[in-house]
C-alpha cells in the first residue's frame, strides 16, 4: 500500500508517523512545498530573532529516516485525479496512491483593502519565506502596521517589537484577541504592549493602504481618517483553508474540505485533516485529526471523540492566559464567577451546573482540568462543598486498572 500525504505540518506528519506505527511495511510519502520542517505557530520567534529555523522544528531531525517516510520536499501539487488515484506534481511527475491525505493547512485571508495586494512591503506571516523576505525591512525604529489583532497579528507584533520596531496593531473589534479574551483580560495585554512599544488601536479598520510612486506602502488610512505611517505592513486578518489548488470535483469543499467523522472526504480513499478541513484552528486538534485519519487510512475505523477547539493558551511579556469555551455570558441566565486582583483575573461562566467557558489570566497553574470540564460538558452540580474557583481534578478523580486517570 502507498499512502500519500500532502502537507508536512501538525496533521500531516502525525498522520505519517501513525501510519508507520500501524503499518510497518506500507509505503509512505509526504509531499510538501517547503524544504524545511518547522512549526508555523513559532514563526514569530524567528521574526524576533529569538530562534532559528532549526530550533522551531517539531519533530526530531531524523524523523523521516527513523520512520522510513519518503519526503518529497520543495514540491507543490499541481492537480489531483481522484478517479485515477493520482497526484500530479508541479514538475509534471505523477504519483499514484492507495490512500491520500490532504493536510495543506490554511492560508492568510487578504481583505479587499485598496492597494493592499499591490503594494510591496506587505507581508503575511504564514511561511518561512515571509519571514526571510521581510527581514531586510526590520530595524530599530522602523514603523510597522499589523492589520488584525488576532493571534497571528499579536504574535507578529511581539516578534517585531523585540527587534525595536514601532508597531501599531489595528483591530476592528473593541479589543485585541477578540475571540479569546474579554475586555478586561485584553486590556491587561494592551497595557503591557504599550509599555513595550506596541500601539494598539481598537474599534478601527484599515480603509486604504497608502503607497508611493514605487508601489511601496508608506502607511495606512483608518476608518476614523487617522493615518499611520509604516514602511512594513503585516496582514493578519484571518485564515481560510488552503483548498484553491484542488480542481477535482469529487472533493466537496464547503468552508474547508468537507469531511465525515472519520476524516474521509467525499472522494474515495481521500482524507483531509487539520486546518484544511476547516474544523480545527488549533494545533492539538490538527494532530488528533492527523492521527485519526491515519487509522482510517489503514483500514481501522476511528472516530474522533474530542472536537473541543475553543481553547487557547497565550503568553506575552510574562502574562499568561488560558481561554476556554465562551468568553462572554450569552445572557443573564448564566452565572459568572469572577476573581480579580492586581495580577490575576479569573472568570468562569456556568449555568445549571455546566461550565460553558472560562478565562484564567495571571495564574494558569493546574488549569488544564477546566479544559476537560468545559470540553466534556461535565456537571459540577455535585461539587457543593467547594468554591467554584477551587475545583480541581480531585473531585473527578478516577483511575483505570493500569493507573491512568480518566473521567
Amino acid at each position: 500500500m502507498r499512502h500519500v500525504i500532502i502537507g508536512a505540518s501538525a496533521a500531516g506528519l502525525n498522520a505519517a508517523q501513525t501510519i508507520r506505527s500501524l503499518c510497518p511495511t506500507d509505503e509512505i510519502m509526504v509531499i510538501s512545498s517547503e524544504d524545511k520542517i518547522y512549526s508555523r505557530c513559532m514563526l514569530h520567534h524567528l521574526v524576533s530573532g529569538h530562534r532559528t529555523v532549526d530550533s522551531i522544528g517539531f519533530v526530531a531531525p531524523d524523523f523521516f529516516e527513523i520512520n522510513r517516510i519518503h519526503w518529497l520536499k520543495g514540491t507543490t501539487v499541481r492537480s489531483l485525479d481522484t478517479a485515477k488515484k493520482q497526484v500530479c506534481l508541479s514538475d509534471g511527475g505523477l504519483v499514484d496512491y492507495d490512500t491520500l491525505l490532504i493536510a495543506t493547512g490554511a492560508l492568510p485571508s487578504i481583505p479587499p483593502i485598496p492597494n493592499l495586494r499591490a503594494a510591496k512591503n506587505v507581508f503575511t506571516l504564514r511561511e518561512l519565506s515571509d519571514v526571510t523576505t521581510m527581514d531586510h525591512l526590520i530595524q530599530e525604529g522602523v514603523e510597522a502596521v499589523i492589520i488584525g489583532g488576532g493571534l497571528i497579528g499579536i504574535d507578529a507584533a511581539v516578534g517585531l517589537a523585540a527587534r525595536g520596531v514601532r508597531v501599531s496593531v489595528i483591530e476592528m473589534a473593541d479589543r485585541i484577541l477578540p475571540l479569546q479574551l474579554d475586555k478586561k483580560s485584553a486590556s491587561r495585554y494592551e497595557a503591557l504592549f504599550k509599555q513595550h512599544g506596541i500601539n494598539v488601536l481598537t474599534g478601527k479598520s484599515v480603509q486604504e493602504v497608502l503607497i508611493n510612486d514605487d508601489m511601496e506602502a508608506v502607511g495606512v488610512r483608518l476608518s476614523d481618517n487617522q493615518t499611520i505611517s509604516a514602511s512594513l505592513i503585516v496582514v493578519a486578518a484571518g485564515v481560510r483553508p488552503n483548498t484553491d489548488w484542488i480542481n477535482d470535483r469529487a472533493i466537496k469543499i464547503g468552508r474547508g474540505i468537507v469531511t465525515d467523522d472519520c476524516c474521509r472526504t467525499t472522494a474515495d480513499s481521500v482524507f483531509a485533516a487539520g486546518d484544511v478541513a476547516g474544523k480545527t484552528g488549533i494545533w492539538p486538534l490538527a494532530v488528533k485529526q492527523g492521527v485519526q485519519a491515519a487509522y482510517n487510512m489503514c483500514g481501522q475505523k476511528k472516530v474522533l471523540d474530542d472536537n473541543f477547539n475553543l481553547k487557547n493558551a497565550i503568553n506575552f511579556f510574562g502574562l499568561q492566559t488560558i481561554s476556554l469555551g465562551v468568553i462572554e455570558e450569552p445572557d443573564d441566565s448564566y452565572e459568572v464567577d469572577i476573581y480579580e486582583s492586581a495580577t490575576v483575573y479569573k472568570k468562569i461562566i456556568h449555568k445549571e451546573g455546566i461550565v460553558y467557558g472560562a478565562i484564567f489570566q495571571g495564574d494558569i497553574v493546574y488549569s488544564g482540568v477546566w479544559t476537560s470540564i468545559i470540553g466534556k460538558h461535565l456537571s459540577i452540580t455535585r461539587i457543593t462543598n467547594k468554591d467554584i474557583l477551587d475545583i480541581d481534578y480531585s473531585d473527578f478523580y478516577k483511575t483505570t486498572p493500569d493507573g491512568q486517570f480518566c473521567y
Partner: protein
Amino acid sequence: MLNKHCGVCPSADTTLQGFIASLDVETAHHRVKNQRVKCGFGLQGVCCRLCSNGPCRITPEAPQGVCGANADTIVARNFLRAVAAGAGCYVHVLENAAQTLKELSLQKGKFKGEAVLNRLADMFGIDEPDMHQKGVLVATKILEDLYKPRAAKMELVEKLAYKPRFDLWKELGILPGGAKSEVFDGIVKTSTNLSSDPVNMLFHCLTLGIVTGLYGLTLTNLVNDVMLGEPAIRIAPVGFRVIDEGYINIMLTGHQHAIFAHLQDCLIEEGISARAQAVGAKGFRLIGCTCVGQDLQLRGTHYQDVFAGHAGNNFTSEAVIATGGVDLILSEFNCTLPGIESIADKMQVKMICLDDMAKKANADLLAYSFKDREENSERVICEAIESYQQRRKQINVCIPKEHGHDDCVTGLSEMSLKGFLGGSWQPLIDLIVKGKIKGLAGVVGCSNLTAKGHDVFTVELTKELIKRNILVLSAGCSSGGLENVGLMSPGAAKLAGNELREVCESLGIPPVLNFGPCLAIGRLEIIATEVAEVLGVDLPALPLVLSAPQWLEEQALADGSFGLALGLPLHLAQPPFMTGSKLVADVLTEQLLNITGGQIIIEDDVVKAADKLEAIIGQKRTALGLT
C-alpha cells in the same frame, strides 16, 4: 448573575470580610488558602518529634515509633504537653494579677472593687479589718498556692470548688499540687522516654484543667475585679466603628487587664486630654481587641471616657491595624499575631511589648513592673503622642464605620447577672423549670479560621441553639465574633425560638449574653455552681452544655480540660489532634462520662451539633423531672 470572589476565607462577619478583601496587606484570612492541605499525621496527633530517631509517624506499617511508643502514648503525650502549655499561660496571667494586687495593697493603692475583696477574704477564711492588709493576705495566699511544690496540694481548691466536685476530684486523685509545678511536671512527663501511660497523662490533664479553671480563670477575674472594678451591665458600641481617628488610639492585645490598671487611671485623669489636644487630637482612646479588650469592655463603666470599645476578636486585629486608625499597640499576651508585625510597619504604628511573653520582633520591650508603673505609663503616653504626630500626615486612615453595632449588651458577670435578676438565681431557675428557657449553653473560647471560616461555625451554631430556646452565655474571642454580627444586641431576640424570644424581649436582653474574655469561663462556672447549689445537685445534672466550636490554641485545651473535670459535655467542631489514638479518643468522648461526667463531642456539622447539644439538655431535664 455575578458572583465576586475575594480570595480570603469566609467570615460570619461579612462586613469585615469585605473590608479585609479590600486591603492591600496580607492577613491571616488571606493565608488560610495556601495552608489548606494539612498533614494527616499532625491532624491525628500521631507525629512525634521528641527525639533524633524521629520524627516518627504511626502508620499501618509502623504502629510504633522507634522507641516503642504507640499511637496512644504519642497522642496522649502531645495532648498533655499542649494542656500544660495552655494551663501555664493562664497561671502566668494570674501570677501577674496577684502580684500586682499584692504590690498595690502594700502601696495602699485604691481598690475599685472592695466588695469583691471582701468576698474573696471570706472565701479564703481571712479575717482582717484593714482593706490593704486584706489585699496583701489574699494575694499572698494565691501566690503561695501557685508556688507550692507538686506534693503539696493547693489549699484554695477546696475553698473555690463546688463541694461535690471537690470530693470527686479527691477520690479520683486529681487534686492539684502547686500550679506551676503541675505545669512543669506536665512538660517533664511528656519528654522523651518518660511517661508512656496514656491514662495517667489524661488524668494529669484533668488536674491541669482544675488549675486552669479555678486559678487561671476564676481567681484572675476576681483579683482583677478588686483592682479594676466589677463588671456592670451597660450598652456599648462594638466593632470597627468604635475607632475614631480624631483621637490618639492605643490598641491593646492580651489577657492581662491588671497590667493596664495604672495606664487606664492616667488616661482618665484631669488634664490628660490637653496633652492630646496640643498635637491636634481630641484625646486618648484605648481600642480593645482580644480578651483584654473584652475585659476592658466588661469593666467599661469605670473607664467610659477612655475606652472606645471592643473592635473585634483576635482574627480582626490585623484588619484593625490596617485601618490606619491605630497609633500605638501595647501587647502583653496572646493573641498577638505575628502577622501584625508587617502591617504595623507598613502603617508606621509603634509597638510596645509589656510582657515578653508577647514580644513582637519589631516591638520595644517595656516590661511591666508595678514599681516602675509611673515611668512606664508616662513613656507609653509620650510614645503614643509621638507616633500620632509622625504617622497621621503620611498614612491614610480608612475605617469601615458601618462595621459593628451600637447596642451591644455587655458587662455580664456572675454578680451583675444575678443583680439584674433581682439578687438571686431563682428567676432564671423558674424560667428553666417552666421550659421558657430549655437550658443553658456556654459557647466559649476562641475564634479560628478553619471551622467553616472566621467565626462561621460559632455564629451558625449559636443561631441554632437560640432557635431551640437555649440561652447562650459566651466568653472569649467567640464573644467578639458574636457581638460584631449583632447577636449580643437586644434586637437579636427575634432570631430566638418563641419562648426564649418572649423572655428576652420582656427583659430587654439579647438571647446571647456577653461575659467578655475567655477568663470569664470561670464566671460561668461560678454561676453553674450557684445554680446547682440552689437545686441541690452536682454540675453534670444541670441542663447545661458547653461548646468551644472554634477552639484555637493550647489554652483552649486547658479550658476544655476544666470543663471535663466539671463533668460537663463539651462540643468541639474540630478534634484536638487526638483521633489517632483509639484509647485517648474513647476516654475523652465516652469513658469520662463515668468518671467525671464530662464528655468531648466532636461534630463538624452545625445542625447536628445543635441537635446533639439539645438532646443532652433534654436528657438532663428529664432526669431532673422537668418536661
